[in-house]
């Protein structure tokens, strides 16, 4: 058992990796596979079992992190900051649990037929999980880039899963834009390395304040480039334009999984701009303060307006995703532990609810015959009571109506903003976009369920219990967030405080010895 304790921190990365390789070996019955071939059945079983084990590991790690200990894993026993470290604090553990909580129902849903619409769905899904887990636990900026690439290249293939003209129409720009963003990521990382001589996050947090003033401008330029990259992943205005079309074009389970992808951007902003460029960064302290909050509030407003104008239900949900990222980043932009705590709670809620809504959008669209997901009158759906109730529950939570967690999350954000200079802005925007979201969803719901054309009485099959169950379990997880809001709030509060305790983080990463490693940029003096 000590072996497990030692290596537990690296398992969230290794488990999906080995599962993916095994899934490639099992195969999925070839391109002409009929629905439910034997190989595909085995793939589903292995994939779901692996994610279930992943969830157990994530919960174990979260239970450990809740005690307040930082779990540090030095890959290959290389001492920090020379080797790569994986660090699991409360925030990382929370994100790991969230990844698996979304992945498990989505995978069950995809097993209902979507995984047979193309090759290697399950292997790609596992590679994506590997990239997500790695990005959430790495303690090294360049390693973060590598895991970004892992999750992105899996997402490129998943995005066009099922093929079709529309998916390539949005898939090609998605890939090209992400590759351009990766180039910017590398430039930003190189600029920061050039003047600090390290890429270890703990080391950076200590060292970035010591960069003398003229060089600090270059480091800040690097940090701002990273904000562009992370803002692009998170769909921060004005870098949000790619998201609605892409997510709406992707197949439902893929779009639901992609609800996690925007949160990687948010997480990276917290880690890099919140903590490393935090208030101890000397000349670069709080450098995103004047940018992040205004842009986040603009993202909220544009997201809600987009939801009002959406022509299809999938686009509506995609715009809601933009609005929810804006709300989270507004809380992050407060740059205080209280704000981050509120952001974490709201992030957990919004990821689950957006994933559920993407699945629900497809369930509803599939039962409306020719009209599909378009917001126009059509024949009645086959299961109006069930789907309508699920839609109502999800809509109420997204819009932030009590007693659902969307309301609690927004309340925490408002509470954290109270008293800060930007408080009135945050209050008015967060409250008004809740109202706008409610109008948008009420419009969609009344068209979908009440504007029924009576002459269209073609009988349609209801969704299978498997699809309904997967969607319901995501909604159930949202309800659990509301029931256990108290303990969760205590956890996220502690997580916010843990983030700003840079000394404890550095002590854990560097071990008992002082981080006095003579790392500094190469200068002329180093060349005899």
């Amino acid at each position: 058992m000590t072996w497990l304790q030692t290596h537990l921190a690296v398992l969230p990365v290794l488990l999906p990796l080995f599962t993916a390789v095994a899934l490639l070996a099992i195969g999925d019955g070839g391109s002409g596979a009929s629905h439910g071939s034997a190989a595909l059945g085995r793939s589903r079983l292995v994939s779901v079992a692996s994610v279930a084990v992943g969830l157990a590991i994530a919960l174990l790690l979260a239970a450990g992190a809740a005690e307040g200990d930082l779990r540090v894993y030095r890959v290959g026993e290389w001492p920090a900051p020379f080797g790569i470290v994986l660090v699991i604090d409360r925030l990382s553990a929370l994100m790991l649990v969230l990844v698996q909580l979304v992945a498990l129902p989505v995978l069950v849903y995809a097993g209902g037929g979507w995984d047979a619409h193309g090759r290697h769905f399950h292997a790609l899904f596992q590679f994506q999980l590997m990239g997500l887990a790695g990005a959430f636990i790495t303690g090294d900026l360049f390693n973060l880039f590598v895991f970004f690439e892992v999750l992105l290249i899996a997402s490129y293939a998943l995005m066009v899963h099922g093929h079709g003209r529309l998916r390539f129409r949005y898939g090609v720009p998605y890939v090209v834009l992400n590759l351009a963003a990766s180039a910017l990521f590398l430039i930003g990382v190189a600029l920061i390395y050039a003047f600090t001589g390290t890429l270890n996050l703990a080391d950076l947090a200590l060292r970035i304040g010591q960069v003398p003033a003229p060089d600090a401008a270059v480091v800040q330029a690097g940090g701002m480039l990273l904000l562009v990259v992370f803002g692009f992943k998170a769909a921060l205005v004005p870098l949000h334009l790619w998201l609605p079309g892409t997510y709406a074009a992707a197949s439902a389970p893929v779009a639901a999984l992609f609800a996690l992808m925007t949160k990687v951007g948010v997480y990276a902003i917290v880690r890099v701009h919140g903590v490393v460029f935090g208030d101890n960064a000397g000349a670069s302290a709080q450098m995103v303060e004047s940018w992040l909050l205004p842009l986040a509030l603009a993202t909220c407003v544009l997201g809600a307006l987009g939801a009002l104008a959406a022509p299809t239900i999938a686009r509506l949900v995609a715009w809601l995703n933009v609005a929810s990222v804006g709300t989270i980043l507004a809380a992050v932009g407060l740059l205080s532990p209280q704000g981050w705590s509120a952001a974490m709670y709201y992030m957990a809620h919004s990821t689950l609810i957006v994933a559920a809504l993407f699945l629900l959008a497809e369930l509803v669209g599939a039962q409306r015959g020719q009209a599909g997901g378009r917001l126009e009158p059509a024949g009645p759906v086959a299961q109006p009571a069930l789907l309508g109730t699920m839609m109502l529950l999800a809509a109420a939570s997204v819009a932030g109506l009590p007693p659902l967690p969307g309301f609690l999350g927004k309340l925490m954000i408002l509470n954290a903003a109270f008293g800060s200079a930007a408080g009135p802005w945050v209050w008015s925007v967060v409250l008004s976009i809740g109202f706008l979201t409610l109008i948008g969803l009420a419009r969609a719901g009344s068209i979908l369920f009440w504007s029924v054309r009576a002459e269209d009485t073609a009988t349609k099959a209801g969704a299978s219990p498997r699809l309904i169950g997967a969607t319901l379990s995501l909604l159930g997880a949202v309800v659990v967030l509301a029931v256990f809001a108290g303990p969760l709030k205590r956890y996220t509060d502690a997580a916010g405080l843990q983030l700003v305790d840079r000394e404890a983080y550095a002590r854990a990463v560097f071990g008992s010895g002082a981080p006095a490693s003579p790392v500094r940029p190469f200068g002329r003096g180093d060349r005899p």
Partner: protein
Amino acid sequence: MTLEFIVATGIGWVTACGIYLMLRARSYPVVIGLTLIGYAVNVFIFAMGRLAVGAPPILRDGAAVSDPLPQALVLTAIVIGFATTGFVIEMALRSRHESETDHVDGEEPPR
């Protein structure tokens, strides 16, 4: 002309060409543009370890050394860039097949 000036100008020129090609919005120029930007970024990372002539990244007694880490980072970036370029070419070919145009938007722009 110092070494730094020549390298910096070269990086800037290649990046500018890459951005121009990317804005052409046709899949072939876009792929070439991405590749050029990738090259420029790789040289940029290399240069961020400081430029030195005749300094290998190996510690020896008394000999000049250069920072080995950017060189390791470049190696990783090259491998990743190679893989993603291969993928984007395949993707562009599929898109060309599906939409019968090589415009990145999947449809010819209105004239």
